[in-house]
């Protein structure tokens, strides 16, 4: 029995196809919400790399990406924002969690070109340099982390969760943070951290 190399029907290849056909929609959205001095936007993007503008942590960032590039990879490989991690790379583990237009998203399942014109918030934008956001601080005080690789994703998911549930019960925390996975086993600390952060944020109404 002989076989050639398999065709490699990876998710990347699949997304690439989807990305090309859906770019017309992306471009229209971008026109409506044009940012200050963005790249001139082509009507169609791809299949080659194209200039796009992303609004990350309140600032426009110009990059040149192929349509198949995920928001996660664009942030990590081109913008240098490496707080969001690539772990499962297919929307299971939550290590790449960011907020898009105020909603929690897995950035590995969003194409960079589809994130144009949207408000992307990453862990790096959560607090000014040298300061810790109350959620991050609670993860420290309750030891909701070990190796720390899942932690930025957890912190962003917790932030998004608390924005919608400012006064959660223990059960709600378990349900609300169910989209993130940890391998070191930090959940005991994470549960306490989210509850502590809720208390802190209620007190100060931190943004």
């Amino acid at each position, binding site marked *: *029995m*002989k076989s*050639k*190399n*398999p065709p*490699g029907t*990876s998710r*990347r290849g699949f997304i690439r196809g989807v990305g090309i056909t859906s770019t017309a929609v992306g471009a229209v959205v971008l026109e409506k919400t044009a940012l200050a001095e963005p790249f001139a936007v082509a009507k169609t993007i791809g299949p080659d790399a194209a200039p796009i503008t992303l609004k990350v942590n309140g600032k426009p960032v110009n990059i040149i990406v*192929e349509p198949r*590039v995920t928001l996660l*990879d664009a942030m*990590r*490989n081109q913008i240098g924002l*490496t*707080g969001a*991690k690539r*772990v*499962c*790379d*297919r929307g*299971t*583990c939550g*290590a790449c969690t960011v907020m898009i237009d105020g909603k929690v998203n897995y950035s590995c399942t969003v194409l960079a070109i589809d994130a144009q014109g949207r408000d992307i918030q990453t*862990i*790096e934008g*959560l*607090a000014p340099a040298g300061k*810790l*956001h109350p959620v*991050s*601080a609670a*993860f*420290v*005080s309750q*030891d*909701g*982390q*070990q*190796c*720390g*690789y*899942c*932690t*930025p994703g957890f*912190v962003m998911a917790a932030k998004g969760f608390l924005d919608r549930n400012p006064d959660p019960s223990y059960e709600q925390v*378990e*349900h609300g*943070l*169910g989209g*993130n*996975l*940890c*391998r*070191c*086993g*930090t*959940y*005991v*600390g994470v*549960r306490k951290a989210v509850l502590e952060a809720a208390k802190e944020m209620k007190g100060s109404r931190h943004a």
Partner: protein
Amino acid sequence: MPDYSWPPMNDRRVIGKRISRLDGGAKSSGRAKYASDFYRKDLLFGMLLTSPHAHAKIVSINLDDAKSLKGVTAVRAIAAPGDEIQWEGAEIAAVAATSEEIARDAIRNIKVEYQVLPHLVKEEDLSKAGPRAKAAGEQVTGDPDKAFQDADAVVVEGFYGIPVLTHCCLESHGNVVEWRQDGLNLWPSTQNVSGIGGDLATSLKYPAGKIKVEMDYIGGGFGSKFAADRWGVETAYLSQMSGGRPVKLMLERRDELMIGGNRPSGFAKIKVAAKKDGTITAWQSESWATGGIGGGGSPPLPYVFTEIPNKRMSHSAVATNTGGVRAWRAPNHPQASYLTCSALEDLAAKLKMDPVDLFMKNLEVTARADTYRAQLVKASELIEWKKNWHQRGEGDPGPVKRGLGLAINTWGGGGHTSQCRTIINPDGSVQIEIGSQDVGSGTRTVITQVAAETLGLPVGSVQLVMGNNSLPPSGPSGGSTTVGGVSSSTRKSSVNALNKLLETVAPVMGVQPEQLKAVDGRIQMKDNPSKSMTWQAACAKLGTNKISEMGANDQRKPEGLNSSGVGGIQMADVSVDTETGIVKMNRFVAVQDVGLVVNPKLADSQIHGAVIMGICGALMEERVMDAYTGRMLNPDMEFYKLAGIGDIGEIISHLDITPEHDKRGVIGLGEPPAIGVVAAIANAVANAIGVRVPRVPLTPMHVLAALEGRNA
């Protein structure tokens, strides 16, 4: 000879305190940089082509179409025509390119022709392994046949299985390598900062002294990240072929699960005999396991209850066409604990005896009867065993059944060989330099606490430099050896440095150095606290000369600062829905023997983490291989299941922090609490539903099959 001994428990200001991990803010703010986060404008992206076949011969490899792609800087064949591939995921070729997307295209453009060969990827049914199963010699103690035939003996027989797990590190294995004319820079994800450079040097036949290693953070290792690895070597060559530009190569998730490391399985047919009062008289086990093409070593059976008078053990290593085994948090112990404790629980059920009583009855055949006796009492109290335990299967009448189970563990945990340097500067600042790594266990915090305690300073006054191979070498983080090693070397270097400082200031204060001590940011007379000077003022006396002193822990001579050998008892409380087969964790109690606990907060986290990892293994995790294609069916995190935050129930850890335990010095804690979790949960499920689920994980499929009386 200076006095390095730990300060008395009551005098400690920093050691033993629940200090939050010092790198916590860097991690929870996303600022901590891992090897996979390496970002530089000239960075290239490396990628592997791996074998889709479990067993095959390479007929040809054609790299031309990969090389011709724009943006590709290097393409290398790793395997050659004629090579025999022994597992899916084996490295075939590697590329480097200016973007990940181009690298991926290049991988796709490599053409490989394979001659597919017959494979074996499953070992659960030993009769199908044929010549792939290699039996080790039988070990016999006493007269097991006679003991089993004794007319009064109660004999129980069972089959138990625990599958291969994969480490599934969240940061996959990999590294960044920059091989320049003048030297090689390596940024790895490793548990072995001081040693990995030498390992790479050997493979590259390149001077080890010219390899610089740096790593601040690692995204999980669990025993699988010690070596430079094939991909590390390939990354170096890719960099060299690309004019010395840095190349980042991290395994793709599927490769991480196939070749990044796995834990060997453990299957066994076990027979145990006991007197009617529960005294175990005989043990017989026929075990087998796989850890890839090299087979799989024998778990230490019977576990902990080693001195059962009559025993017969045999083991077969099954060579399968699957990725190679790597060390995993307490190698072979979780399997051994599961196999042994399952058989003993089955014995207790047959005797209609409370398994806690059965364990109690047989502690004299263990190496630490007193420890376990006290722990059984403590754990029973914490989980309310007497109130909640019932005879097997005689619990709630409804469809949801609750049950309790227990397990036992033992581990070493002595400190590894480690060197440390303590520097005291004339301005009063303090630096600790050590070539260790913090794998998430809190090593940074522990080292800093030990230095601060020794120098009488707050932790904030100690600057720790670690994570590169130009620093005093420290051992790899495996075997729970780190905390003992680094705390001892740090203690010694800091005592040595402090003594130098005391020698400098004693004449100024008009006393002998031995009359002085460092405490609360001051140097003061031991018997006259009013005679003192501030730390700053004392250091200023150094003039322009800093103090730089070394300290070393010798693994073979820990000199009382650390030691080895612990026991633990773990108990699980579960509910099982007998209609859906779903197992829910109610509570888990881990009573763990330790020595001197440097930081109880981090110690608790270690136990919680170990228990949660065990819950994953008990309820969800399994590498699923396809017998027909030879491929792994779940090399992703959707179907290679890990527990989520809602799956773990309540976890109660208990450490005895007493002078008696403390006087043993520091003992590692990362591994022992990870050992008995699967066993305790499996026993709790058997207690709940009235039948033994013969193999883990305790998925609905396996639970329902056991309830229906068929093999899953």
